[in-house]
């Protein structure tokens, strides 16, 4: 098991290293001069040259990459031009907000998605199954930004139950925070929830066909116990791997949710930096988002190892 964890850890580090390479490459190799983009069409040659030197862009690319990576590793993400602030500080302000929304949505997706999948599998062919399957299909197909707008229209503008937008930290005003985040969280969770419900359903159906379920029934075990104790635990193993992918899609979705609900999180920071042509920030945000996803996947892998004795006990 220890070997397994260490191996995964090393793999994650390798992945993060490659992520940094990809991010750097995207930002530097593709057509378009970031400085020219940043300064706009009216910039003079001198201005461009000055900024290039300032940002170290006149050095060869490998040197630039090494400089950047070393700085990042020391916690220095550089300085934002449009915000005129340390990028590290920007991230420190916004990351907790995204975590708040994202983690809540993640938990909600698990808490609702997995039971929904189980029910659909156990009642296969019944109306509950149809309802859950259809809802899950809709949940996967619906554009989350559009659903946000629909929600705002219905619950905020028409019914007036919830605030239109904004974010308040739960430590400041719990009630207000809850009212402001309930809709973003629910909507953000929807995609992952639908995916989880579908996967749980098919994983359960797959497991229920297995010989060991027949064995459990042949022992006279109660059907409830067969499902919860024998089937579910086995079905969860593939579902855990889905969680990792769910995490990535959740992070993607939060970009839209933060945009629609005007929540000052990482997604909104990224969108604003893109429009502000603040490539230092974009680069950092992408790197951090990818790191969060990679670390999340690492956690998922370890959980997988813990649940499955075939991995835990080494094989």
């Amino acid at each position, binding site marked *: 098991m220890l*070997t397994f964890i*260490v*191996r995964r850890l*090393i793999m994650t580090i390798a992945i993060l290293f490659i992520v940094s390479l990809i991010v750097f490459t995207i930002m530097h190799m593709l057509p378009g001069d970031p400085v020219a983009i940043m300064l706009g069409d009216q910039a003079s040659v001198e201005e461009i040259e000055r900024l290039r030197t300032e940002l170290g862009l006149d050095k060869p690319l490998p040197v630039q990459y090494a400089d950047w990576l070393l700085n990042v590793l020391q916690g220095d993400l550089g300085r934002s031009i449009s915000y005129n602030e340390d990028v590290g500080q920007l991230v420190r302000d916004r990351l907790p907000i995204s975590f708040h929304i994202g983690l809540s949505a993640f938990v909600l997706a698990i808490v609702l998605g997995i039971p929904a999948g189980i029910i659909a599998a156990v009642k296969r062919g019944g109306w509950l199954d149809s309802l859950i399957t259809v809802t899950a299909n809709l949940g996967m197909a619906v554009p989350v930004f559009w659903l946000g707008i629909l929600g705002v229209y219905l619950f905020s503008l028409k019914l007036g139950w919830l605030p239109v937008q904004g974010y308040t930290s739960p430590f400041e005003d719990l009630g207000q925070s809850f009212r402001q985040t309930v809709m973003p969280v629910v909507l953000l969770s929807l995609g992952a929830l639908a995916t989880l419900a579908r996967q749980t359903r098919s994983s359960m159906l797959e497991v229920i*066909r*297995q*010989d*060991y379920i*027949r*064995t*459990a*029934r*042949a*022992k*006279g*075990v*109660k*059907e409830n116990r067969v499902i919860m104790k*024998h089937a579910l*635990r*086995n079905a969860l*193993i593939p579902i855990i791997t889905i969680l990792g992918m769910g995490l990535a899609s959740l992070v993607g979705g939060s970009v839209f949710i933060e945009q629609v609900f005007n929540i000052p999180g990482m997604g909104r920071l990224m969108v604003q930096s893109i429009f502000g042509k603040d490539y230092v920030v974009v680069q950092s945000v992408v790197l951090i988002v990818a790191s969060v996803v990679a670390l999340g996947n690492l956690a998922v892998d370890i959980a997988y190892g813990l*649940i*499955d*004795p*075939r991995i835990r*006990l080494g*094989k």
Partner: protein
Amino acid sequence: MSHLLEVRNLKTYFNVDGTTVKAVDGVSYHIDAGEIVAFVGESGSGKSVTQYSGLQLIPSPPGKIVGGSVKFEGNDLLRFAPNGEEMRDVRGGKIGIVFQEPMTSLNPIMTVGKQIAESVMLHLKMGKAEARRRAIELIQLVGIPDAEHRVDYYPHQFSGGMRQRIMIAMALSCNPKLLIADEATTALDVTTQAQLLEMMRDVVKKTNTSLILVTHNLGIVARYAERIYVMYAGGIVESGTTKEIFGSPKHPYTIGLLKAVPRLDDPKDRKLVAIDGLPPNLAHKSEFCAFLPRCPFKTEACQSRPAPELRETGPGHFAACHEEVAASGGAERGLASVSISSVQEAQAPEREVPERSVAAETMLEVRHLKMYFPVTRGLLGRKVADIKAVDDVSFEIRKGETLGLVGESGCGKTTVARSVLRMYEPTDGQIVFRGHDITRMSMNRLRPLRREMPMIFQDPFSSLDPRQSVGNIVGEPLKVHGLVKNAKEYEERLTELFTLVGLNPGVRNRMPHEFSGGQRQRIGIARALASNPSFIVCDEAISALDVSIQAQIINLLEDLQRKLGLTYLFIAHDLSVVRHISDRVAVMYLGKIVEIADWKTLYESPKHPYTQMLLSAVPIPDPFVEERREHVVIQGEVPSLLNKPKGCSFSNRCPFATAACKESEPPLRSVAEGHGVACLRA
């Protein structure tokens, strides 16, 4: 006296893609307390579904029990709700069941102790601690050493045989009245099979438990069963005591089965009598006798009268046949019954004995072949050991002969085959094929030689490309090696090949999934023959097939050998089949050949203790012979290749092992002309 279990007119149908498949169609039988009863039949005969139906373990949908009654201790089990309390009390409590697949029948993420205890707590109302003690006891009972520790192991930490022991422990855990073993030993090696069956018999006899053996293996039936039900196409076609059925079989299907299986005590020149054709499609059953299309005894009457009911043909002996087919030869038994009727006689001429000549010329010579697979561990993938799958194996095959290579799973026989064909890169040694040393030959130079040495695979379902028509599959070697000049020649050769293996050449445009297992194996054989080879490797080529189909394929292989002068390397685990088909036989154990000799010497006076015990473990489908046979059961399990005992690798299981055996590894030495044994005592 009422029976322990009495089943009346049981019908279980499956709805598959809109058609009704009558898997079990009006089956009646009974079991008394303490009896050992066998259900015999081939795949699809409904023997397993019959057993599951009584316990309402049929997956529904698509399955549905549409009629009949299953009286167990006076209660009709079919009246209970499928997952209701009364049904669950019976399952695992009064009726224990052991399933076929030991590798998948245990919950992979629950310790075996907990899985056994679960049953005990449920039916015997024991507490946790007590149930655990009971689990340990049971694990000991089924012969697993070190039970106190093993109780906390997960299934993947056990071998297949061990897992099946756990399954048996679980089934026996609540002192059931009836134990059902559904092909429980089919997936296991012959020595493990013997151990488990002996153990089950001992336990049920001690506790007066009834035992139902569901199997296709007639040898097992002859050795262990007291009474038999023979099933075909969803119905019972014959029933009676074991001696009655084997001694004077009445139903043509039973007669056919008995003649289709090779036996350890066959005369060598016996030609197997295959049952022609295929089992019927249960979705389109005719109103006539289900065996009619394959029956060699059929009369006008059979083709007009409705399907026959079981009728008593002797005391306690029932058969579902209109005719008294076996009247003439029915009283005879054993070897004599091979020639039961004139009809069969005509189809089975005595084998034209040594028409086939073995030349002195060597076809294949393997010298000191070693095939090691590295075991890596840790982060850097350091090599910590080698799995010595094949460890210094030498043999030669002469032109025109068949060398049989037998052994239990993991002995390395398949690895030998694959190394010989360079599907693996041998670690060491030399492979000389028709004078060419191919051990290190480059793939480009080897390719033209490949047409001389094709292979027939074990699994007829995975060895044919599902996206190619069978014509393309068979014709591929012709194209690859440029063996035909033009399209016309290609078509002619295909027609010839299909005809040669007994397939209608008109089917060449069909896809593999449209064929049955036996037909697919014929296609595989046609592919092997396409390039006109002189040598063919048959890797378990018949082990995935049903008994009646096996005989067809064995006969085909033998006919082809005679006709085309082929040389075979025949790899199999079934000792009776190998005996039947081989001129010489090599026995492998843990990567080495332990004994090699001509078939007669090897089977009649084996020298190596392993060979002796292996042969003793093989049941002979004849209760009269089995009665007289002495059964020496090998102790223990085949050790892992990484954990071989020091010295002779059989020394830890050998009853004759001495201190010397544990010190040095005996080489394979010649004890007589052409007879090599790797044992210090020989």
